[in-house]
């Protein structure tokens, strides 16, 4: 049985390259997927006997292609049946197939497969679902469970998404350098969506797995584009965030904020990898939003305790991020750093101008509540927390705010008159 586990792992790792190459041959997603499925079935029969091939992807591509051509021939009632020698004499054929797959094809194949999931007409959740289905090879049942919808609904969603991406075939042209860079950027954004879908899942283990899947695919992307500092930054960001998984929720599934987390529970291995990657990325002196966010996460990872956090540096990094990607949410995050460096009053001044644009944003009111609480303005804190709880996105978020409100009413019961 450990044989099967090993084969399963090898097939999963080879999938993006194999399906990507088959898609280049057949220019049709369904045919490529069917060909891959066929090849996997033959692998399950062949590999336990003959051992896994040295290059699993090349094997699957060749066998899958033959199987699909075979199917086409049969359908067209072509009398000529392909000889089974092709399969019995794989060692030879495998070498030839492997040498034919040149590295740049491989890169563009995998990139194309990822890129077709980023179709601009697909909403984020459908991009994620499509990528999980065709790139990661998760079953519809698995994806449906992660999104908490029925299998039928997810099946329908994926079918519709496939039909949409199947309509255009511009993606099949070999991309020029500019277009390739654009594809990499679009794919990076999509992979970060996959990660965040998992990261925001709270303690739903099905969905939390998406973090691992996003990390795996981003590593793959970085292996293909080794010198891209933003991809290093993105992978570092994912690794550093996911290193805190075990510390982020208490036994009841409630959020534990960074300051209150048991840092002993942080996973040192992804932290080491994340720090190494951000180190590498910064040498390029081409800062981008992922690198800056990763650098911020790295400063948290490096601090043995909350009191050791280098908030001055974090404030400076958020200032850079505000310049690169101006948004009220970035300013809101910067305000947290400002509150540590210059005090809650300064932070409140900073977020005051955002109150219109972030009127319906949970974190805005959560932070406003916390800052007012720190200043002893209990009525203002209560108002902000009341607003926040109404806007909470998950039960865990609501429960967290509820704790603040409960503590407020216990320690500072509302009085008539000024608070």
């Amino acid at each position, binding site marked *: 049985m450990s044989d099967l586990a*090993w084969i399963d792992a090898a097939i999963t790792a080879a999938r993006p390259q194999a399906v990507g190459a088959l898609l280049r041959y057949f220019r049709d997603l369904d045919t490529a997927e069917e060909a891959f499925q066929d090849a996997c079935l033959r692998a399950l029969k062949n590999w336990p006997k003959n051992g896994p091939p040295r290059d699993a992807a090349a094997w699957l591509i060749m066998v899958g292609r033959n199987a699909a051509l075979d199917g086409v021939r049969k359908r067209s009632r072509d009398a000529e049946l392909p000889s089974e020698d092709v399969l019995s004499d794989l060692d030879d054929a495998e070498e030839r197939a492997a040498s034919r797959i040149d*590295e740049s094809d491989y890169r563009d194949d995998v990139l194309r497969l990822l890129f077709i999931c980023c179709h601009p007409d697909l909403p984020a959740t459908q991009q994620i679902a499509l990528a999980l289905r065709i790139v990661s090879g998760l079953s519809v049942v698995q994806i449906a469970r992660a999104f908490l919808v029925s299998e039928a609904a997810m099946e329908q969603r994926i079918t519709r998404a496939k039909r949409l991406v199947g309509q255009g075939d511009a993606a099949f042209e070999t991309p020029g350098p500019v277009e390739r860079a654009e594809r990499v950027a679009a794919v990076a954004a999509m992979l970060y969506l996959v990660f965040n879908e998992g990261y925001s899942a709270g303690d739903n283990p099905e969905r939390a797995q998406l973090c691992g899947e996003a990390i*795996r695919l981003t590593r793959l992307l970085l292996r293909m584009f080794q010198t891209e500092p933003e991809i290093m930054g993105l992978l570092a960001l994912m690794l550093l965030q996911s290193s805190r998984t075990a510390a982020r929720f208490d036994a009841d599934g409630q959020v534990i904020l960074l300051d209150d987390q048991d840092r002993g529970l942080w996973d*040192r291995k992804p932290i080491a990898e994340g720090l190494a990657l951000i180190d590498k990325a910064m*040498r390029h002196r081409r800062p981008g939003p992922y690198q800056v966010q990763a650098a911020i996460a790295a400063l948290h990872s490096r601090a043995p305790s909350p009191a*050791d956090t280098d908030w001055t540096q974090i404030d400076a990094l958020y200032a850079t991020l505000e310049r690169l990607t101006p948004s009220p949410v970035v300013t809101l995050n910067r305000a947290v750093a400002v509150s540590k460096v210059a005090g809650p009053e300064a932070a409140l001044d900073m977020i005051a101008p955002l109150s219109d644009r972030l009127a319906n944003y949970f974190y805005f009111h959560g932070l406003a509540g916390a800052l007012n609480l720190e200043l002893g303005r209990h009525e203002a804190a209560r108002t902000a927390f009341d607003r926040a709880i109404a806007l909470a996105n998950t039960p865990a978020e609501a429960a967290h705010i509820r704790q603040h409100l409960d503590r407020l009413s216990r320690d500072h019961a509302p009085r008539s008159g000024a608070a």
Partner: protein
Amino acid sequence: MLYALLCYNDEATVWAWDKTQDAEVMARLGVVRDRLEKAGKMGPSLRLLPTTAATTFRKSDPPLVVDGPYAETKEQLLGFYILDVADLEEALQVAHDLGEANPGGAYEIRPLAVYNAGAPVDPAAASAAR
């Protein structure tokens, strides 16, 4: 005889193991390692981060710093063990035992010319604050 046992495998597969799988493999390898350490046959061993975290320094003039590993290969160098065993036969037996605990890939058994133990390092401190 001192040998380095160099571990090669497809890192895309190995680094896709989930935490449980990874812990299981490490526990099985730990059993073999413990036994050999107690018998005085196992020196330091280490596991490398993926090649995506690697940087290559080419000693050209001027030197060239390149992202990524020295060689792009189907299987990557993932770590190594230092063995102090009688002969190649015994080294191959260790490879066999480790291979049972963690199937897939290959071990290169390379006799050592020089071994410097160096100063003791503290990996826990090294990965924490700087």
